[in-house]
């Protein structure tokens, strides 16, 4: 951990409720002013010490502040008071800062002791600013303490009222749908002209028997049939051709995709 990290990292600080205090342990005849339990950590103690210099925080002597802090800690230790680790860590860091500030400047040190001192000063200024701000905020005329709202307001009520919308068409259409939905349902099966597979089989095999040349499949269909029957006959004749080929009674040939399907009988 770097030196600057010691001050900046919240990990070094301690929880505000944990400090049990040194003063409770101090005996009455001690002339020493030790009330560590009043502080929330080392930064708080430093701020209090700085304020006792009675100068603008921007002009405090950091060296003097360090000495005061270290004196405090030494006194506490001399009294064998139990100090929270944070205070000791801060003391060690301040001792380092003091020696660095007193030594001839070493250009190589980075950050410079001046920078570290300035950082500490800036943090003290910020804490002091917020402490003052909090005090001024708390001193304002506060609602419920200094100023009061109406004790028994009547209250405002807004009752929602629905305004329903529907139009004539929606009404009539809804009735139509009810009637349509609940009307008795009758299923009608249309009578369609079809050529069954059996009749296609007998027709195709009979025609193959009288002609040994290649014939196009559609030549096997009834020549003057109704278009609907013709479609059915096409399907049935195609399946019949496949069946005859499977049985070895016919062979099929097609030169191109979707091209004419050619059919020829095989002599048994």
């Amino acid at each position, binding site marked *: 951990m770097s030196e600057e990290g010691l001050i900046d990292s919240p990990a070094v600080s301690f929880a505000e409720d944990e400090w049990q205090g040194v003063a409770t342990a101090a005996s009455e005849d001690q002339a020493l002013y030790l009330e560590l339990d009043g502080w929330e950590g080392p930064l708080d103690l430093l701020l209090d010490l700085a304020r006792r210099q009675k100068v603008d925080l921007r002009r405090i002597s950091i060296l003097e502040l360090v000495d005061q802090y270290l004196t405090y800690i030494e006194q506490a230790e001399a009294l064998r008071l139990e100090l929270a680790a944070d205070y000791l860590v801060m003391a060690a860091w301040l001792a380092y800062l003091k020696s660095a500030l007193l030594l001839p400047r070493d250009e190589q040190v980075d950050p410079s002791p001046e920078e570290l001192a300035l950082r500490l000063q800036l943090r003290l200024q910020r804490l002091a600013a917020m402490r003052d701000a909090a005090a001024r905020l708390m001193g304002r005329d506060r609602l419920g303490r200094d100023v*009061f*709202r*109406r*004790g*028994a307001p*009547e*209250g*405002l*009520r*807004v*009752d*929602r*009222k*629905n*305004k*329903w*919308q*529907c*139009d*004539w068409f*929606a*009404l*009539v*259409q*809804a*009735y*139509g*749908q*009810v*009637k*349509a*939905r*609940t*009307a008795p*349902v009758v299923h009608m099966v249309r009578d369609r002209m079809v050529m069954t597979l059996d009749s296609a089989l007998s027709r195709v095999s009979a025609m193959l028997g009288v002609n040994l040349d290649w014939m196009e499949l*559609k030549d096997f269909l009834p020549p003057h049939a109704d278009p*609907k029957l*013709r*479609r059915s006959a*096409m399907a049935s004749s195609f399946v019949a051709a496949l069946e005859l080929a499977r049985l070895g009674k016919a062979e099929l040939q097609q030169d191109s995709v*979707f091209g004419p399907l050619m059919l020829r009988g095989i002599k048994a």
Partner: protein
Amino acid sequence: MRPDDLVRAVEATLFAAEEPMTAEAISTHLGGANVKDALVQLEVQYRERGVQLVERGKRWHFQTAPDLAHLLRREREEVRRLSRAATEVLAIVAYHEPVSRAEIESIRGVQTAKGTLDVLMEAGWVRIVGRREVPGRPVIYATTPEFLSHFGLESRRDLPGIDELRAAGLLDPVEDALAEAMDTVGKQEEAADNDSDETEAEAPD
């Protein structure tokens, strides 16, 4: 305390009070000052305002001016579309009135939630007109004059009859209407690729 300050103190005390206060209680609160004059002054000062100081049974309190009392409780209208179920029920009541809930259900073919009829009554379009003199004496519903005026009808006779509904296609089962629509599309496609040969699938007829 200057007189003005006393008036202001009484004003603030009554404003912040959680209950009406007697003149004595106010006086005690303000260290024994005589508050009678201050109360009278305040009563006059507030007489024309939106808030007034009133005495009720020797106790004083501020209250909203009576003519503005309507501001404390307002109604806000929200426009809402009738649900499909409610529209159907309304249509059945209109075509078949007077009608019981059981009859509505048998016409609709589905159970009708109690809330649906409540909505129609809240809308002011349907009302209870009596009871059917059958076992259980169910209440029967009919439409209201507001119903006619909302839908722009002179009377219920203006509602289209069954034959007119059928002519408009409103009685066709949904499936048939769909099939017909599909058929139209199919025929258009057939016309478009009339050069196809028989081996290709054609649109159904």
